[in-house]
């Protein structure tokens, strides 16, 4: 099936793209297109204008931006251009070593063909609650760089995801980059549960933990996927894990709270009760993996 007819623009700079968006009535931004094109083909959307970011070179790439800037943590930070395709992120040694959780999650996105085209920024801006990277951005406490008519602003991941398919990016704005603080010495674990390999996750959990003296969890950050209209932090688990020695029993007990405050959907892949249970199991496994393999 073919999409409805639309006008097409292919700006070469962010400013040009923003001008196009400002003038347009009903525009859709095309990043990698791996979620947008099926929607257009199904005619669930019929925009007047499609603004293709594919020719804006500045939106692509992985940059070490050092320890300064807005990102806290002291371990430095890595900025990923919004239009960087998954496979480039996956191929980056820097990401594998410094942002292991992101590496794990990106490896699980879609399938190889989708990872060749799909972009990190595109998926975060799409804000599908079943997307792999939203929960990871939350757990890693990433910051979103949003460009708009009046310049750039930086929004913490926690404020970025507002509702189902709804982010802090306005109609006349663009997500241009994602900044990830680097946490040396933290371990990472990603658990994605699917019925078939290329499916969206039924539930996924991303965990990163820091072990004090290599033995006790001093701090943990847990992101949940598809447990509500937006990706979520499992704060209750994070609190319960502080000071815990990561044995399966202790971690399991802490992760019993993984579904607290969530509102998971019920669909053909599982009812809400099942998802709540799954979150506790996957959280335990993700945390144990993270604690067992500190960087």
């Amino acid at each position, binding site marked *: 099936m073919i999409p*409805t*007819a639309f006008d097409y623009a292919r700006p070469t700079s962010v400013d040009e793209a923003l001008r196009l968006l400002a003038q347009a009535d009903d525009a859709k931004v095309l990043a990698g*297109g*791996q979620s947008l094109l*099926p929607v257009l083909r199904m005619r669930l959307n019929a925009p007047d204008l*499609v603004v293709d970011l594919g020719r804006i070179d500045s939106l692509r790439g992985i940059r070490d931006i050092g320890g300064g800037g807005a990102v806290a943590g002291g371990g430095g930070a890595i900025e990923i251009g919004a239009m960087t395709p998954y496979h480039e992120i996956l191929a980056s040694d820097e990401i594998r070593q410094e942002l292991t959780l992101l590496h794990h999650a990106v490896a699980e996105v879609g*399938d*190889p063909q*989708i990872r*060749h085209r799909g972009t990190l920024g595109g998926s975060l801006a799409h804000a599908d609650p079943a997307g792999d990277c939203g929960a990871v951005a939350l757990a890693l406490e990433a910051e979103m760089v949003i460009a708009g008519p009046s310049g750039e602003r930086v929004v913490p991941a926690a404020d970025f995801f507002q509702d189902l398919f709804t982010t802090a990016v306005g109609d006349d704005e663009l997500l241009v980059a994602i900044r990830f603080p680097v946490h040396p010495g933290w371990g990472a674990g990603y658990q994605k549960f699917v019925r078939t390999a290329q499916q969206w996750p039924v539930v996924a959990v991303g965990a990163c933990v820091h072990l004090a003296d290599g033995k006790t969890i001093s701090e943990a950050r847990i992101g949940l996927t598809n447990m509500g209209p937006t990706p979520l932090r499992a704060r209750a688990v994070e609190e319960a894990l502080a000071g815990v020695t990561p044995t399966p029993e202790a971690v399991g007990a802490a992760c019993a709270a993984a579904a607290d405050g969530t509102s998971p959907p019920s669909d053909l892949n599982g009812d809400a009760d099942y998802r709540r249970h799954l979150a506790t199991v996957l959280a335990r496994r993700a945390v144990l993996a993270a604690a067992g393999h500190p960087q």
Partner: protein
Amino acid sequence: MTRIELTVDGAKVSDDVEPRLLLVQYLRERLGKTGTVIGCDTASCGACTVHLDGHSVKSCNVLAVQADGAEVTTVEGLATDGALHPVQEAFHEYHALQCGFCTPGMIMQAADLLAENPAPTEEQIRQGLEGNLCRCTGYHNIVRAVQHAAGTPGTTAAPAADGGAA
């Protein structure tokens, strides 16, 4: 209409296309490259897989205008000088196709997989083909064919028209 210029299976082509035209439709309807087929509307089946600038993509999930300036290789451009690509040979030898509808996409993805990982394990082959559905073979012989092709000289070097594998 938007003007696009690209290289398809080694030949330069240019056309005015509607922006909404999918790459796979451009290949099939405008260029007659009917070896690449359409199996679904949600980028689930992978039957339309081609190489775009050396990487496998689902050509039903890319607009033709997005391929402007790119090099595209379809299953029709995979054989060189009349000799089948090692993956094509292996599919024949190991009976890795039945109705053949998924085959062009499966072959293109397998070729991409081997370009990125010349010596994959069975597990890696299966994961690498997760975006391609086949309804006939149960994948058993497809996996064996790819295992066999992995050991064949010439598999890992992507064909010239491919623009080189990254």
